[in-house]
């Protein structure tokens, strides 16, 4: 029977924390944030490896930490499967023995067979006798996953589980973990700084900055509607600008972007005259064909120039300077589209900003 994992952590230092997380059973919650944002610290506090000044950690009925009531259960007593960033496999033990180390709650006679079952589940049949040094990075990650599952955990903590493996192996492991998690009826917290990884494996996303949860929600919601410019930056939105709300209408919100009026989907929380920040994902920016204009060009056309063009294999990264204020819009195009339109630095072009893609946020107060 799986339960919700509820986490509340607060401390002033050495690593400041102000976090509230609620991860329902069978869900994967991704903690996304830059290095030093406190992601690993949160996992360590959940596992009982670190004691925050104030906090509450419970999985269903089991309260693991409650500083108000002086409850602080040892890591051994918290039924947690923890996959460490660099796997933390015991180097002197074989893969099977590594898994068996987490099976001491089971009868001695069952442990070897159970370890082999778990290794088979992560596609490592026949490699149980090998030591970690004799395994590839991907295989080590699988052993670590099998060991994390061996405790029959009530909650699973995955600390950047794919950061130590190469790109090709990572893609394979994503699919395996995605398959594995369908069978796991327990709350899972995945720490990552890779948005794509979070989008692929998680149901919900918590965006962290300086030890604080800035926004938590379903992945699609957070991606489409970041709560602030800081969140927008952390989820890889590069096109963030200042504007003023020009008018609120029933079907649309109009914003004044330094003299250029843009039409956005209705966002009634902002009053006309309010200063705001707005953002748009690169995928919502459409380049006008220079040889054959089309109907879609009526939607928020922005004339300007190609400021920079960086080939990136099959795609080209474009830095586009808006004519009216010099602000830079960044987006990518297929290489063949760029070639067909004869795009080069300095060339005049026009882009359309899809109204559905324009999202309004409170004014950006950060310097970044």
């Amino acid at each position, binding site marked *: 029977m799986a339960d919700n994992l509820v986490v509340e952590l607060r401390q002033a230092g050495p690593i400041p924390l102000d976090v509230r997380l609620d991860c329902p059973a069978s869900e994967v919650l991704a903690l996304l944030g830059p290095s030093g944002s406190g992601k690993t610290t949160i996992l*360590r506090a959940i*596992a*009982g*490896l670190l004691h925050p000044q104030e906090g509450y950690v419970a999985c269903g009925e089991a309260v693991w930490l409650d500083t108000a009531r002086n409850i602080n259960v*040892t*890591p*051994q007593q918290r039924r*947690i*499967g*923890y996959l*460490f*960033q*660099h796997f*933390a*496999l*015991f*180097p*002197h*033990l074989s893969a099977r023995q590594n898994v068996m*180390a*987490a099976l*001491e*709650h089971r009868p001695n006679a069952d442990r070897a067979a159970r370890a082999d079952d778990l290794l088979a589940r992560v596609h490592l049949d026949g490699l149980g006798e090998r*030591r970690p*040094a004799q395994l590839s990075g991907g295989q080590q990650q699988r052993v670590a996953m099998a*060991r994390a599952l*061996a*405790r029959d955990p009530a909650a699973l903590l995955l600390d950047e589980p794919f950061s130590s493996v190469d790109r090709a192996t990572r893609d394979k492991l994503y699919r395996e973990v995605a398959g594995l998690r369908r069978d796991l009826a327990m709350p899972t917290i995945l720490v990552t700084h890779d948005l794509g990884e979070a989008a692929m494996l998680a149901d919900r996303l918590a965006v962290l900055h300086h030890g604080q949860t800035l926004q938590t929600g379903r992945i699609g919601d957070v991606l489409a509607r970041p709560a602030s410019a800081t969140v927008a930056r952390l989820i890889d939105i590069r096109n963030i600008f200042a504007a003023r709300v020009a008018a609120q209408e029933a079907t649309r919100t109009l914003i004044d972007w330094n003299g250029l009026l843009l039409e956005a989907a209705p966002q009634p929380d902002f009053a006309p005259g309010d200063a705001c920040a707005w953002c748009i994902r690169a995928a919502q920016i459409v380049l006008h064909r220079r040889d054959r204009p089309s109907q879609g060009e009526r939607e928020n056309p922005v004339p300007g120039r190609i400021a920079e063009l960086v080939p990136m294999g099959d795609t080209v990264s474009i830095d586009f300077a808006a004519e009216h204020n010099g602000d830079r819009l960044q987006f990518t195009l297929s290489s063949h589209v760029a070639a067909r339109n004869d795009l080069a630095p300095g060339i005049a072009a026009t882009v359309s900003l899809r109204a559905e893609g324009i999202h309004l946020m409170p004014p950006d107060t950060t310097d970044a």
Partner: protein
Amino acid sequence: MDWTALRLSLLLGLWTLALLLPAAIWIGRWLAYSEFRGKSLIEAMLALPLVLPPTVLGFYILIATGGSSTLGRIWQSIFGGPLAFSFEGLVFASLIANLPFAIQPIQQAFAAIPRDLREAAACCGLSPWRGFRLIELPLAWPGLLTAAVLTFAHTLGEFGVVLMVGGSIPGETRTIAIAIYDRVQAFDDQAAGLMAAALLVFSLGAIAATTALSKRIGRRHG
């Protein structure tokens, strides 16, 4: 060859090992994992026998174990004999003189175990004692072996401290190192040479065996 002296030296080495190693494991592990004020001072005190002239160390131990010292009087009242100039006094001196040889390699070995391995052991549900037995001890093993060999070899070769604390009482405090000195003083170069060669071969063999074993363990853990 003074077999009594050799037997006494081996016995002294074994006693030192048996008493010092468990304490060194505890102290070395504690120093490796803890950060606290005054840690450097404790480490410096434990390293003192490395830099102090053996006669100075021996002098202080002699003062501490002599018949008029507190320790000497307590010993006398319990066991009915003096601590200084006895085999037991030698063992005590040997424990002090070997502190750095036993503790430092063990401390380094525990410090080299990545923190996440110890944490992984706890997250696997292993109790602190099980984690120590199953994970830490096997990983720190080369350090323990080095500590044991260094301590044993150093005990066999210790001269200054032994002479100060034990003198040269045959069968009681005359170790092989003292016996070599005695033989040289008596112009018995043949006996001195034989015993010196025996010590040399033993020390070389012990160091070579430690290095080889450490490498083997290192490869296994690679």
